[in-house]
């Protein structure tokens, strides 16, 4: 019998099949206004990053936060990454620095899941900011794995 993984980021959890009620009328419009979105693939030189309000989201967030497009993506340029599984995270730091210094982004909002390993994405953003010549406001929003609630939302620099 295999031992169940105890890492909070990978531990099995069944949320059950109970239907969650919400306002579901009408078709939601996508708020995505660019391609690509993966942090390795995006270019800080892209016009949509210039002076933008950037959302750096952990991959899983969009699957947990029911209103991700409407509440968080709207009006922002996005980049996504998985701080647990992605390789080349030094490149991520350099890319954040370039977004701040070269694309002169206005703000950076980092959305992560509540699992501990996701916090690395916040750390990547902070390292990118520390290496930059410009300073910008950085906000951290942490989403709960069950129900997609906002567990914390604060300006971290």
């Amino acid at each position, binding site marked *: 019998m295999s031992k169940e993984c105890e890492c909070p980021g990978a531990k099995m959890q069944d949320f059950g099949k109970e239907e969650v009620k919400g306002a579901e009328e009408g078709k939601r419009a996508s708020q995505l206004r660019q391609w690509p979105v993966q942090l390795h693939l995006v270019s800080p030189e892209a016009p949509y990053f210039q002076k933008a*309000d950037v959302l750096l989201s952990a991959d899983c967030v969009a699957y947990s936060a029911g209103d991700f497009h409407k509440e968080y993506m709207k*009006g*922002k340029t996005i980049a996504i990454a998985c701080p647990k599984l992605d390789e080349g995270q030094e490149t991520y730091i350099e890319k954040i620095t370039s977004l701040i210094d070269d694309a002169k982004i*206005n*703000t950076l*909002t980092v959305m992560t899941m509540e699992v501990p390993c996701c916090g690395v994405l916040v750390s990547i953003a902070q390292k990118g900011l520390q290496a930059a010549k410009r*300073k*910008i*406001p950085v*906000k951290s929003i942490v989403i709960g794995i069950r129900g997609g609630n906002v567990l914390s939302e*604060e*300006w971290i*620099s």
Partner: protein
Amino acid sequence: MQAYLNAPIKEVISKFPKVADILNGYEIGCVPCSVGTCLLKDVVAIHNIGEENKAQLMYEVEKAIYPDREVKRPVINKAAKAKPEILRYSPPLRMLVNEHLLIKRLLNCVPAIVKALKEDTVIDKEPVIGAVDFIRMYADKFHHAKEEDILFKYFDEKADIIQAMLNDHVEGRSHVKEVLNGLKDNKIDAVSQHLSAYAELLTGHIKKEDEILYPWMDKNLTVKQVGELFDKFNAVDNGLQRGVEETYKGRIEDLEAKFIQK
């Protein structure tokens, strides 16, 4: 109740004095406010007392206004009463709060400066001149200008809460003018009186901004606006006003060395 929610707080307190005690119980300092035109609903909304406390406060106010009316008592955790949420400011508003720290260090020197004016046989005007220079160049031209020329433009400047802050700025400038007149005319009592009045005014003003105005503003600013404000404040700090922070920090250290640490 709706009519009282849309009534100026001074009017509500005058009609129902018990409301003043209720507000004081939640450390909401509207009672001695000289303006008092903020609406009751805004007073409740903008103070940083937590949602449960707001519900309890509204219950108590409604009972004070309508003692015979059956009002549903909210379920709240009593331990939470009067414990404000921890204040976490956005980066641009944190810059202003940090500037308040330096201004408060000057205000802390004022009683000793005034004491020296009253007690010393040979009057030394230099500390007063230094304090006035700090007030004019740092507190007013550097700090209040960021508020008046940049921050307040993001809000309705006719709103009562903004008007109350602007009135404080005007009153502060008037005290500074009187301090200078007193120095020129050798009226040391007037200098002491207006310098003390300025310190008292600014102490209350900073408390209102730190605890009420800025948290309310942070709740209403979009992420985009926070970025813009941060950029504009940095442009001030690194533009014509470059070096002001360091210069006046040095001046305060000199005043503290003379009046606080002796």
